[in-house]
């Protein structure tokens, strides 16, 4: 069970092997990809930046919570940092468990919490030549759009973040 950052392409085959368990009857994974559009803008590439020391702690806390909350075997998450092109994988989450239901649930929980809580920032570069930090620049103009970083455990509403997934 491990959260980590990487500056190179995520090796899902190697990551998946770490989840193998003879008691596991299945494995669910989620991949977040760089999308070519966001809110009417044509996206050409992304940059991810992380406060890694705190991000590792918070990411591992989320994985620990997932294991406590769902009867799963193993969980892991890898997040890219640096410059990414369209269709590159930005994030990978994997969960193995005895039965599929909790693996799906835990996988969903982990990606939602990671998006809310881990200090990672995303800068979009647009076809127009413009660029912007997602959730920050528009946020500054409209403070109403508050991000969800923090230790909240209310029901997770689907969070639609632009740029990937």
């Amino acid at each position, binding site marked *: 069970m491990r959260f980590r950052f990487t500056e190179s392409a995520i090796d899902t085959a190697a990551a998946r092997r770490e989840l193998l368990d003879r008691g596991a009857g299945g494995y669910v994974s989620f991949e977040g990809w760089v999308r070519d559009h966001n809110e009417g803008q044509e996206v050409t590439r992304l940059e991810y930046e*992380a406060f890694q020391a705190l991000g590792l702690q918070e990411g591992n806390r989320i994985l620990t919570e997932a294991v406590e909350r769902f009867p799963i075997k193993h969980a892991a998450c890898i997040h890219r940092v640096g410059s990414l092109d369209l269709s590159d994988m930005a994030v990978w989450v994997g969960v193995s468990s005895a039965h599929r239901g909790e693996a799906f649930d835990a996988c969903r929980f982990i990606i939602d919490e990671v*998006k809310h809580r881990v200090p*990672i920032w995303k800068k979009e570069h647009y076809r127009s030549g413009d660029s912007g930090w997602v959730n920050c620049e528009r946020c500054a103009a409209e403070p109403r759009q508050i991000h969800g970083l923090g230790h909240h455990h209310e029901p997770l509403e689907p969070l639609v973040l632009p740029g990937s*997934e």
Partner: protein
Amino acid sequence: MSSGGAPVYGLVLAGGASSRMHRDKAALLYQGKTQLDRAFDLASGHVDRVFVSVRASQAGEPTRSEKPLIVDLAGLSETPGPIVGIRSAMAAYPDVAWLVVACDLPFLSDAALEQLLKERDPCVLATAFRSAHDGLPEPLCAIWEPAAAAALAAYQSGGGHCPRKFLRRYPASLIEPHDRRALDNVNTPEEYTVAQAELEPHVGAKPMQLQIQYFALMREQAGRSAETLETSAATPADLFAELTARYGFTLSREQLKVAVNTEFSDWSRKLIPGDAVVFIPPVAGG
């Protein structure tokens, strides 16, 4: 407040030489007020009249001159000191007891004076606190009864001048202070610095070095990813205000989280030298 006995006046001793402090202790400032004013005002809350005890040479000093003074009488003793001040007060008002308070007790409290007056024993020569440090009487936060005048004169004519030794030799009532801190005295510049910082943590805060890291939009706006900063900001909230003034951050504090030493933190946490502070803009992983 006292249970019988002579009425009590207050006497703030401000005649000391302050030799170890290298400055007049009566004029030291705490929370913007001189220690003399603090002691005088504190005593005034408990007794009807308060005087300031000074040597003749100090009577015109601005720190002291506006207060009702009792000037040391000439000829009482060759050795100046607190006993001369107390005897001079007793000579001026022979029928009252004196709540004597030194001028170097910045933590002296209403509770301590209240206890002293409540537990006063007017049948002995003095009621004093027993020091929490060494078990000895504290003569300079004590009530001295009128009957002590003659004994003090006899003690001084025998060459004595230490009020603590006097209280050990003559009948006195020693009480245990509830507020032990109240009797901590301040004699050196180092002790003053510590006491001042405790009494006014913000004004007393000295500039310190902090490590700041910037990410994403804030890194771009600060024009750097990290810096070591000399600041007197006491909390992350103060620090953010200071840095916003410098770099013009567009995000407001309400939109941010803050981490200190790689843990999420309150905005009101008290920062200490060497702390590593990171402001965390709205996140967007995934």
